[in-house]
């Protein structure tokens, strides 16, 4: 094997770094968010102030912007997730799934907080 190709093989084996937690490949939603959806999501907040504070500091980093995470208020992105049932979503939130970090960057969240946040984010605007 030519030396150069060997070197290239070493490079190929080193494919280590996906770069951000939001960036990982999700199930592809049938309809990706349009620019209008992204702009709208930026303004959405939970009604309860304490929940809004948690959402801003934890969830919004990925769910409030265009990323691989399902976008807040974008029904088509959430529909296949909701179809799995709230308990499954809660489990994935607590334990993490693909790009979703365990506890969703909210280590202080209780179960009801997580349920409320999921409900808020998955409700079509």
């Amino acid at each position, binding site marked *: 094997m030519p030396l150069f190709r060997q070197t290239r093989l070493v490079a190929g084996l080193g494919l280590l*770094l996906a770069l951000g937690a939001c960036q990982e490949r999700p199930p592809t939603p049938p309809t990706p968010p349009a620019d209008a959806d992204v702009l709208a999501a930026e303004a959405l907040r939970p009604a309860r102030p304490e929940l809004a504070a948690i959402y801003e500091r934890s969830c919004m980093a990925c769910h409030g912007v265009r990323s691989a995470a399902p976008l807040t208020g974008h029904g088509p992105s959430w529909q296949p997730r909701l179809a799995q049932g709230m308990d499954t979503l809660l489990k994935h939130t607590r334990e993490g799934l693909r790009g979703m970090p365990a506890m969703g960057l909210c280590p*202080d969240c209780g179960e009801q907080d997580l349920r409320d946040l999921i409900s808020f984010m998955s409700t079509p605007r």
Partner: protein
Amino acid sequence: MSQAPAPSRSTTRRQLLTGTAALALFDALRGGTLAQLVLPGAQAQTQARAPSTQRRWQNWSGLQQATPANWATPASEAELQQLLRGTKGEVRPAGSGHSFTALVPTQATLVSLDRLASVVNIDKAAMTVTAQAGMRIGALARALDAQGLALRNQPDVDVQTLAGAISTGTHGTGAQLPALHDDIVAMRLVKPDGEVVEVRADQDPDLMAAARVSLGSLGFITQVTVRVVPAFNLARHVWLQPLDSLINEAPRLAAQHRHFEFYVLPHTGYAAGIRHDVYTGQDLMLPKPGDEDVLGDLKKLRDWLGRFPKLRRSGHGEGLAQQHVAVGPLFGQQTQVRLVEDHLPARARQARHLVEQGQAGQGFVDQPQRQAGGEVGAHAPGVGVQALAVDDQGGLVQAGVAQGLAQAREEGAVRRADFSRAQR
């Protein structure tokens, strides 16, 4: 094994390439060493709480994991002081889990400052912002943008907490731009005994220098004051280019552009170049989801070259043809591929050293990789094809591609501060 004729001019490229591959591993290898530096005198707490209260922490890659006996989330600096005074054994801070090293894992007490996540003060006269250290970079950028301000060099991955980013030397690209920690002018630090120290760069430069990238070893940073700049926009350009020629051009591109980086596209012989420069136009657009676009470009390139088999055998010769063959399985596997980020040439020498010592390579195949997503940002289909036309090694490739797909070139400007994907 045959020995390939290796032109001398490619030696440097080869070394750089090897360095690139090893860099991903470099952080992981380094982790074991770093972990010993953190709170060296602390002893592991063996008394575990009931399992029902235990929750597992892991970093984003899943390679670092821990189930701390106690995972505390103080809501104020005073609560943190109280916690530290009342806790025996090892205490470690956790940010957003974006570090590759074993800084965070502990079986004793883990502390997250996620609840300390507010802007304290924005001083437009001094051009500084004071924020609680658990605030995430993206959230701070959003708050600053509302005031017409921005961080000087915001990393594109922006979910890190301020304390975590500063403490680990988190940085964006930009050869002339310092990392975030360099813009810190003051911070509040809670020492392991609970005492609060206010550190100012102008009054205690030595302590500040030690505290900037302190890996959590000095205590908990609870508040930082950071220099800011007027808000600005960046134009982003993404293109594909043969890896060899891009490596050749990398030093020039890094010097010419505010930000430059590239991603190696494994098994293809190509890399995705990304550059950003300050943009003053008004035609701003949202960044589009980029993960698939460059791969899509590459697929188009494969398909296009497939219609010109003679071309594949010329230009880059056998190498390109074989690389072309390799692209097929690549796209059939739903991204069992990870792309390597690097900021050449800063650490290439160290990484190459690891390779030469035979340390690199271990762990690439036997460590579980939980995240399988390839990651390349792009929003301009066809840009890469245009870039390919500047390849200095394949005249036929240049002419043919320019003729066939030059019209696909597209450039766009993105708004930066309030959208995290803007900068890479």
